[in-house]
């Protein structure tokens, strides 16, 4: 089985309240070096057999049409999960 990773992030210009809340919580754990946190999504898409160019193209299409909303999010990466071919 092959696996494709799709990563989606809120657009830089869009406010990310979840990331902001996480950013606010970190100093309470004594972790105070991070000036900003942004939170996105990672999807893992599994196919039978190995990951083909066609499968990557389908993952790209799914990423753009369903897994992200282009008004508020960017698809930042679509790639084969490393170490899982064969």
């Amino acid at each position, binding site marked *: 089985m092959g696996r494709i990773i799709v990563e989606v992030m*809120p657009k830089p210009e*869009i*406010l990310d*309240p*979840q990331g*902001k*809340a996480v950013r606010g919580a970190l100093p309470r754990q004594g972790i105070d070096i991070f000036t900003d946190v942004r939170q996105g999504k990672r999807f893992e898409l599994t196919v039978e057999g190995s990951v083909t160019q066609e499968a990557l193209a389908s993952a790209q299409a799914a990423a753009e049409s*369903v*897994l992200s*909303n282009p*008004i*508020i999010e960017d698809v930042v990466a679509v790639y084969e999960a490393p170490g899982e071919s064969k």
Partner: protein
Amino acid sequence: MKVGVVTFPGTLDDQDAARAVRLAGGEPVAIWHASDDLRGVDAIIFPGGFSYGDYLRCGAIAALAPAVGSVIEAAGKGMPVLGICNGFQVLCESHLLPGALIRNEHQRFICREQELSVENTSTPWTNGFSAGERIVIPLKNGEGNFQASAETVAELEGEGRVVFRYSDLNPNGSINDIAGICSARGNVVGLMPHPEHAVERGFGTTGAGYRTGTDGLRFFTSVLSSLVS
């Protein structure tokens, strides 16, 4: 006149929407999300709730349901469509309306009686209001922050497609205080606040007396009068 109310898994306010249609004098018709049969209705309501538990993005999975495909086709022919709260999110995710709704700026769920100004009274859902009229209906959501690109906002403003604006305060960070918008043709309207929760004396918003506010009822009487005219 038959008004369809679509139920998705996780929808909460379908019964209130159906009741509002009935109180306005119409016949509510239940539409199940998994069927593409709109059962001969004259108008459609996507009610509030948390379809699919807000998984992926609010309204995103519901937007792919067979019933929504039929509604997109019917809306293209001019059928009046109203999306309330999660229903508004479904309209945006299905591209019947532009823009998107993200988490409230203050990061909290909000529930309040919200004052709105009615800015467009030519839609089938607002023809019973007067332009600039202030109304009060309940607002309850965690992700009601309307966002769109600068070009889209300019287009909405320039074409008079901002139908409702938050008027006493902006409760969620929505751009330009936008509470509701409509399609270019005007037949598709979406808003975050809930008209169906203010349709009957004794159960409405705080009006002249306790729970007497029924400003929401006119959404439903408006669409019925637009259908007969």
